[in-house]
């Protein structure tokens, strides 16, 4: 359970707050999607949940963040990192080893995972991210997309209870992006891992996240069940957030038929909606 109460944060040396009066709670086993235009405070929010704010980034901090009952200000980063894993937007700043297997090993050894357990953890993490074949490769020889998968594998090998990902599929093609989302869904549903996913890929986000939070200028402009948030498509567009085209179709058919249509988030739902119009 993540509970954020009236969080405001201004980075040291900045005048404008990066986050203002954020109130948000994510239940255990929740899947929250976070979206918003550039500069809205998405990465700052991720840093606040993982405790990097205020431990790494000083500034003016008001309010509180608790992760599984631990207050992120009072708890050391070391203890927090056993609860929360984070995949950074900038993969280059996350990966520290020259070889793929070493990158996974590094985190596991730091966490004091028993030696005999380590090979199975590495196999599992590489297998789930679909990169078993990259185990012995050097990081330098990998593409951007492959590096992104290594960064994700190295975090999930640690079995965090909460996973925060900041645009983890930026370099991936649509099929690989969908694989990563499906895999997060599996972790979420089968192992109850709480997922907080920052993404610009609105179509995928709406298909997979059960809840959405829309950030704009450091504040939460809207939050709630994904469909409930998408029902305010026009408001989102005014903030610079697109919505999936099937959702736009829902809105257009509602307008043109004069009958409220369901808010669709995927092709299956859109197909059902349209079929009801056809003779």
């Amino acid at each position, binding site marked *: 359970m993540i509970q954020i109460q009236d969080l405001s944060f201004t980075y040291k040396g900045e005048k404008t707050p990066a986050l203002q009066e954020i109130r948000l709670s994510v239940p255990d086993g929740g899947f929250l999607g976070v979206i918003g235009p550039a500069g809205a405070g998405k990465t700052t929010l991720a840093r606040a949940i993982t405790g990097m704010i205020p431990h790494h980034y000083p500034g003016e901090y008001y309010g509180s963040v608790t992760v599984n009952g631990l207050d992120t200000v009072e708890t050391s980063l070391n203890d927090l990192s056993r609860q929360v894993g984070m995949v950074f937007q900038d993969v280059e700043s996350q990966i520290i080893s020259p070889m793929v297997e070493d990158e996974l090993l590094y985190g596991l050894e730091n966490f004091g995972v028993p030696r005999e357990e380590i090979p199975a953890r590495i196999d599992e993490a590489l297998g789930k991210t679909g990169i078993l074949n990259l185990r012995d490769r050097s990081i330098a020889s990998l593409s951007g997309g492959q590096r992104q998968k290594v960064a994700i594998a190295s975090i999930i090998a640690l079995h965090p209870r909460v996973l925060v990902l900041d645009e983890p599929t930026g370099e991936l093609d649509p099929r690989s992006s969908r694989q990563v989302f499906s895999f997060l869904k599996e972790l979420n549903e089968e192992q109850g891992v709480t997922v907080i996913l920052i993404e610009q890929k609105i179509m995928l986000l709406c298909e997979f996240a059960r809840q959405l939070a829309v950030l704009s200028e450091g504040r939460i402009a809207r939050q709630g069940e994904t469909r409930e948030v998408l029902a305010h498509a026009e408001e989102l567009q005014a903030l610079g957030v697109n919505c999936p085209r099937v959702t736009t179709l829902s809105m257009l058919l509602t307008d043109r038929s004069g009958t409220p249509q369901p808010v669709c988030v995927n092709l299956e739902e859109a197909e*059902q909606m349209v079929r009801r119009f*056809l003779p």
Partner: protein
Amino acid sequence: MIELEHVSFAYPEQGPSVQDVSFRLEKGEFVAILGANGAGKTTTVRLIDGLLRPTSGRVLVAGADTRESQVSERARRVGFLFQNPDRQICKNTVREEILFGLQTVRADEGEAALQARTEEVLRDFAFTGEEEPFSLSRGQRQRVALASILAVEPEVLILDEPTTGLDYRECCHIMDRIRRMNEEQQTTVIMVCHDMEVVLDYARRALVMAEGKLLADGKVPEIFRDSALMERASILPPQMIGLGLRLGGGLENACSPEEMADAVMAKSNKKGGAQHA
């Protein structure tokens, strides 16, 4: 304008990453290169740019073989917008950045002309010129990179995933500006892009690649309607086309939600009264 004749390319100690690819692009086209990670898309645009030379075959840009032409000559003709703007920005202010690009390829025009051109481009992009690129957002930095390329007025513009990391509004700004350049100056645009909605909205022709080979070459909405091809190339078509294909009955011709809504209402026998499930 651009011609690839049986072009193959292999990176040292790796298998071929482009194999026997041939196509021709005319001036003023807007082409997207589609395919999964590792399909050979980036290698293909680097071959066109002359950053890479083919292992076999020929690449001709405006009639000149990239193996024989000068880097300075190619830089004048071909602009390259990278995925990550930080790989191309190197100056401390936006004005210096734009001027620097002009000085490297249009030095023969004299400093006064280049300064005037810089001011013109700054106005066009609504920059003051004093902005420091590295304190701008990623979307703004991508606009700086685009501005310094447009300043040179290349005949060919290559975009390697130009919208990665940008939000929706930034993505529209960048793509609309590129479309304007394509329409007004007949700049040939070649774009590698993973966002099929962007491809559908902006490109007119698509080259589909898989495992280094060219699988197909055709018009944009049609190519997305070829389900077998999309499957082979690991591409998910844009949502409205995917939906149209599931529904059939002429609805597969709709490209946008608006066209889909029009087509659905035209076929509907429940105008003004469809039931809500």
